[in-house]
């Protein structure tokens, strides 16, 4: 069975790296994997999405509406924007974190303050936490992407694979300890 998952967020949040670690791991553990990225443009602050599909044999790299087993939203309103891609019964992992778009900054649009509540009303499986806080407690806010990756790995039920070695093979040594702890911490949260 092919599994589909979606990373959504804003440029600069570390989505590309988190999805890279995930796909490298999935390949290592013998899955067929396809991944597709749309990273907008060079500027800071645009939305970023990465789609990953894995299983025995995967054809399309794209995920349709109502097809994602898990969505990981690195930012709150991005969760609302992409929730229609979630499969019925799928899991939505939401980082309790907001980044205002330009239209909100200048007061043309409002940032909805009840996103999480609205999502919880409709979606059965919502996992919410503040990854930045968790990462900060671990020693560096930059590891929030790995905390979210940990939660995703748990939601997919592939937490028993050797993710520690994947981190070690794909990141420079000085980043190993923090990122391994961050992934493990993330696994406890979903």
């Amino acid at each position, binding site marked *: 069975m092919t599994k589909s998952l979606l990373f959504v967020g*804003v440029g600069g949040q570390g989505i590309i790296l988190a999805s890279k670690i995930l*796909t*490298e791991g999935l*390949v290592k553990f013998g899955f*067929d*994997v*396809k*991944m*597709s*990225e*749309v990273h*907008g*443009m*060079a*500027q*800071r*602050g*645009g*939305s970023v999405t990465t789609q990953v599909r894995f299983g025995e044999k*995967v*054809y*399309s*790299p*794209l995920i*349709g*509406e*109502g*097809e994602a087993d898990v969505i990981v939203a690195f930012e709150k*309103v*991005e969760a*609302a*924007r992409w*929730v*229609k*891609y*979630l*499969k*019925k019964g799928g899991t939505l992992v939401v980082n309790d974190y907001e980044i*205002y*778009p*330009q*239209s*909100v*900054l*200048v*007061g*043309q*649009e*409002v*940032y*909805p303050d*009840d*996103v999480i509540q*609205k*999502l919880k*009303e*409709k*979606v059965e499986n919502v996992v919410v936490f503040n990854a930045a806080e968790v990462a900060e407690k671990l020693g560096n806010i930059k590891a929030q992407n790995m905390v979210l990756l940990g939660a995703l790995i748990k939601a997919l039920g592939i937490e028993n694979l050797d993710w520690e070695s994947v981190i070690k093979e794909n990141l420079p040594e000085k980043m190993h300890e923090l990122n391994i702890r961050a992934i493990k911490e993330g696994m406890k949260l979903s």
Partner: protein
Amino acid sequence: MRKIMTGNEAIARGAYEAGCTVAAAYPGTPSTEILENIAQYEEIYAEWAPNEKVAVEVAAGASIAGARSLSAMKHVGLNVAADPLFTMAYEGVNGGFVIVTADDPGMHSSQNEQDNRLYAQHAKVAMIEPSDSQECKDFIKLAFEISEKFDTLVLFRITTRIAHSKSIVELGERQEVGVKEYKKDVKKYVMIPAHARVKHVEVEERLKRLQEYSNTTPLNRIEWGDTKIGIITSGVSYQYAKEVFGDNASYLKLGFTFPLPDKLIKEFASKVDKLYIIEENEPYIETFVKALGINCIGKELIPICGELNPDIIRRALLGEKERETYSVEVKVPNRPPVLCPGCPHRGIFYAMSKYKDIIATGDIGCYTLGMMPPLNVTDTVIDMGAGISAAIGFEKAAMMAKRKNKIFGIVGDSTFFHSGITGLIDAVYNNSPIVAVILDNSITAMTGHQENPGTGKTLKGDISPVIDIKGIVKACGVKEENIRVVDPYKLDETEKAVKDAYNATEPFVIITKQPCALLKDVLKKRAGRYVKVNEEKCKKCKVCLKVGCPAVAFKNSNIVIDKDMCNGCTVCLQVCPFNAIEKVGEWND
């Protein structure tokens, strides 16, 4: 060894394994990473050319000299390079010659949705289309072989979902083919009419041989499944078709797509009950199949516009309904791209935004965003270079109509080198009192920060002479007194230049000089700098919001500045009428 790679990485790997020795390109999404990856192989000379035409000509020269050579570009880049493409189609090759065209169905980052498969047909050169990263690598190697065997340049056509999708690739070894001997052969390499007339006949004969090849090559293969439905498809559309139909259909999967395999198509069509053509954008395969007199279903059900995906196919061909999913009643604000905090383009746009009668013909780059609120400066964007040349036409038409607008043409540094220089020459030559604004942020930013002739570094990272923009402007004939070089972080100086330009009666040039805020050195240098609002002084007039910086927000009835986002460019500080914005942090210059 197995590795997960993007299509672009796999193409670079394929070029390496095929013994490619020369590669030239100009950046453009989604093709940019091909050359960035090729540049990492010591065995290949790789360069950023100032534009796609130069890149293709560099690769063409290398091919004639005997090297396996490659050029890569986004779809619109091939328009720029169309001239050498069509003539090289006649001249053929010595070392194998491959041009990668990266099309962008869905226009994730492009100004149009052209389908460059039609170029192969038009120029009469062979075309290959891979459908995943493994094929990107394997097919590039074949492309070089086909190029040499049939004496033709090969167009290698990919799309965004091939270029930027990752899948697993089995790596191979580099095959050293060296650089072939060059023998002078004017009948082949000097395209005067007398030679070209002979060549055209040869090209037509070559096409016949290529079509025979197309019918027999393993690049075009039939996968038999249920024969009630037959599907002819290529590129990423093949993956979507497999995803939807699996074994419930038979497939003619095309990897060699010009010339198309007439016999193979007839054979396949005769053995299936119903024939679908699944392809993105133009009915390229469909038109050919229909011309063979074969009934098939294509664009009457599958849209021409936009990117294809499995769900569109499911709905169009199987009549499937949408899947059940979730929706929430939240009004989600848009998140369009904006100029970064501290972007050096902001100051000049702000200065121009004060003149309501300026017409600004813009161009392509980060600075295209000068059209967005709250700056709202740009009037037109056509293609690279038109920032300056369209200004001239605008000025001439305004003159004929006795309109009084001042016309500003805006281009970036990379765009100026690409095709802005010829426009500036036109302005001087034909005495057009436009203002050319050249935004020199010392990088090709939009496509992800590539070096260019003004940055002093090559694609390989070697030091090279900095081509002086002001020197070029002067050499084009713009008078010294009509040139201003300004620091766009200094608003007074920038506003003064805009005012002088506004009042000028001769061709005028403003060059803004300040590096892109995202460059590593800039990030490091400005790391400790930011500004904050002094709440006692702030009168909430919101003038600072007019500079459109994402770090400045109006939150809970207060102006707040995000200190992590701010880079201390001080543009907002300079516009505040009450001196309510203050510098904080480390300022040592």
